[in-house]
């Protein structure tokens, strides 16, 4: 009895720690994005709130919380209200499964990878439902685009991850990291470079980021699926998008870059290497956004179905073949 309570308390504490870390990351990811893109465009970026604008995310959050929550006329109310939360919950739950460190993972389940994939597909429901429920034509088009995009890129991403699963022989994320440590190259990036390439591209598409940000293309559909949302609901969508980025990057770190393992141990910060790899990946997201134009809808589908999925399939086949031989 006591041990159960103790375990519960332990879980709650760990959950809170991880959630706080994750939320801070998400909040400061928006800040980092604005600052980095600003510097790439020879601007200054946010620099008014706090020293060097460091309190900007908090100010934004406060502003969005205190704004009026508008419900446009003619929306499908239950769907309209629930959609942002579907997005956020699905994106946020993934944090529980990412092993930050050998001893720091909230729930170490055996189908971790599958669970994350399932959640990220569910997250697209938030987008689709918000597009449908908003009673706006732009939102509707955005929702349609999102559903098509998510479905096609989900496949490429899963296939890329499957080859990792094949190599590790497990769906448990912890086991995947451990298998990587024991593998000859220490990380799966080197043997699975093609899978990594496919995964990164599909992850960018999965998160609706430039150059695949069609569902929310500002210059075409104004803001796409969340065009009718305001205040906190808008903020939740925003949060979900950045959560998605963090989860996808964390997944890439876990599956391809060897998780928390680095060339040498850093004292006192056991997940130093994990975070470093995460930041590099997140930087790439932002960097790409500052540089590239946007694909067109049909071109995006073509890229997904005609290039990424065949490449991922061939890679999977090769992996299985090599695994059979050795």
């Amino acid at each position, binding site marked *: 009895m006591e041990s159960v309570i103790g375990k519960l308390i332990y879980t709650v504490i760990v959950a809170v720690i991880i959630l706080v870390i994750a939320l801070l990351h998400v909040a400061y990811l928006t800040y980092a994005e604005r600052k*980095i893109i*600003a*510097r*790439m*465009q*020879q*601007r*200054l970026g946010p620099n008014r709130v706090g020293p060097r604008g460091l309190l900007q995310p908090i100010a934004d959050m406060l502003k969005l919380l205190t704004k009026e929550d508008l419900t446009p006329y003619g929306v499908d109310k239950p769907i309209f209200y629930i959609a942002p939360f579907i997005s956020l919950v699905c994106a946020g739950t993934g944090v529980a499964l990412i092993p930050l460190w050998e001893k720091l993972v909230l729930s170490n389940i055996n189908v971790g990878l599958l669970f994350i994939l399932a959640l990220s597909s569910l997250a697209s429901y938030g987008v689709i439902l918000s597009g449908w429920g908003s009673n706006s034509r732009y939102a509707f088009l955005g929702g349609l685009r999102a559903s098509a995009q998510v479905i096609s890129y989900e496949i490429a991403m899963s296939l890329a991850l499957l080859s990792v699963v094949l190599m590790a022989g497990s769906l448990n994320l912890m086991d995947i990291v451990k298998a990587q440590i024991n593998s000859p190259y220490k990380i799966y990036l080197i043997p699975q470079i093609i899978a990594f390439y496919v995964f990164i591209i599909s992850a960018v598409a999965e998160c609706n980021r430039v150059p695949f940000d069609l569902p929310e293309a500002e210059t075409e559909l104004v803001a796409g699926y969340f065009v009718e949302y305001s205040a906190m609901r808008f903020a939740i969508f925003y949060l979900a998008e950045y959560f998605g980025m963090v989860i996808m990057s964390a997944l890439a770190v876990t599956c391809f870059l060897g998780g928390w393992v680095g060339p040498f141990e850093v004292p006192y910060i056991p997940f130093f290497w994990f975070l470093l790899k995460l930041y590099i990946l997140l930087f790439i997201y932002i*960097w*790409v956004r*500052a*540089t*590239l134009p946007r694909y067109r809808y049909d071109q995006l589908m073509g890229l997904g179905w005609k290039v990424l999925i065949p490449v991922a399939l061939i890679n999977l086949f090769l992996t299985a073949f090599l695994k059979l031989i050795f």
Partner: protein
Amino acid sequence: MKLLEKALLIEILKGLALTLRKMLFARPVTIQYYDKVRPVPASGFRGRHALVRDENTKDTLCIACLRCVKVCPSKCINIEYETDEKTKKRKIVKYEIEALRCVYCGYCEEVCPVNAVVLTEWYEYIGFTRDDLFFDKEKLLKNWDEFIATQKRPYLNPFWKPRGIPEKFLPAKKRQFVGV
């Protein structure tokens, strides 16, 4: 080869390299207006209106010839004057400029034969009501005082004596004008 180039995203990497280079080495070009930098407009910038205050009479130089009223494309200048019975000299009673109507073409200062009206290089002016930007004679003179305090004397607005315009087009007073 071409396929390899395409697969390795060469041209995209070039673009990425450019943005990275800009991030690391280029300085931001942002002008942090107001608290860090306050740009000085070029000489002849067409900003807030003013009536030149005569040093001797402490009044405007305007002789109420109404040329500025006639030339104004947006009809934002309004002048009322009275004529002295004996000397036949005109004296202005009202000189109003509605800055919200003004299109800042600068024709008024160019046609003024005595260089009384001027669009100063003063660009920081706002108003919370429409009345704040409705300049009557007192306000216009005050504008001039505020402006000239920041300038080196003698001050010569380029539009009072436009460069390169033949002298034939300028009234006598403008030809010898050297500034106030």
